[in-house]
């Protein structure tokens, strides 16, 4: 079972690496932020698996905090980046 979970960690880490490529490539801010969200989700999965594989139950708490704050960061991105999206001509009106 441990081998299987370790392999799952490896697979998710590979996905996480692909997300990093997307951060590096862009091309727009929104793409980068979506990739950061993907990395956050992958990080939560890795933490839950690592907690089980290595017997560190507190890793679940770290995953819990990541889940809450990653949501918060993505909302902040939309709010802070909105003025710029408006100048680009995309969807005015939700905020402000």
């Amino acid at each position: 079972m441990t081998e299987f979970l370790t392999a799952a960690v490896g697979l998710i880490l590979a996905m996480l690496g692909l997300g990093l490529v997307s951060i590096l490539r862009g091309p727009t801010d929104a793409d980068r932020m979506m990739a950061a969200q993907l990395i956050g989700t992958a990080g939560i999965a890795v933490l839950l698996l690592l907690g089980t594989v290595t017997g560190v139950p507190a890793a679940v708490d770290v995953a819990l905090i990541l889940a809450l704050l990653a949501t918060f960061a993505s909302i902040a991105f939309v709010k802070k980046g909105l003025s710029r999206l408006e100048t680009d001509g995309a969807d005015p009106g939700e905020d402000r």
Partner: protein
Amino acid sequence: MNIATVFEIALAAVVLGLAIWTIAVPDTYSATVGFIAYGLLVALIWVRLDAVDVALTEAAIGGGLGGVLLLGAAARLRDTEAMTTEGPSLIVRLSAAILSASIAAALAVTILLLPDPAPTLAPAVVANAGATGMTNPVTNVLMAFRGMDTMLEKVVLLLAIVGVWSLASDQAWGGRPGPRHQADPNGVLAFLARLLPPAGIVVGIYILWTGADHPGGAFQGGAVLASMWLLVIMAGLVDTPPVRSRWLRLILVAGPGLFLAVGLGGLCFGSAFLAYPVAFAKPLILSIEVAMLLTIATTLGLLLAGAPERSAER
């Protein structure tokens, strides 16, 4: 070399590569997003090193609140960056690079020169864990064995908020920080701001409570509470409080104030400043932590909200 080691090496390489990219990328906004992802990955490394307390803080500050602070700064800088035609000169860049590299080199040399095994007080901390009735060694060190340092850190938080507030213009002084957020009251954001905070508040209090015996504590719990408060503010459901408000200032000094009062009590009734009576050590420490949870959540929220910008009447 087993498979776990391969993963660790790959993770370390990815983190280093991301760090270099974050420094090298010219666009501030991209660098900020890179830094948020970097914080997430560093939290993974801390868990792998069995430093879960540090991982919690890194996830809360590095990936969460710190990232949001930087996103706000990058959004604010964007207009001025578009206007400036030339960046810093080559000499400025070179000297900044040399300064940073020499600091990194000095740290690396210090760590490499440590005697083997490195000097440590960890056995002493474990041996005296019973003195406070709490089994999390990190909380024991922070709240009891090095309580003085922790108290002074909370005072530093107060100084930080005074520094941010002092950036206010004269007309706005005493007013509300940040813009008044407005969002569709039936929209997704307002829905999320009603759905998430109840769960977030439970998680924040849980992180504080579990800190006595497992990784956790007031700072991480406070960071979660602060993010939930800011979420409600950003959804336009509540406004930021005016900084002249009396209850706000009371909450801001509650944590350090109670810490100081307990410390002075130790001087009067016990053997030394901040000496807890053994029978009451855990209740005293927990009550200090509850007060600090409120103070830290409010302080972090206000630090992210920024300097007062509007008078309280509007």
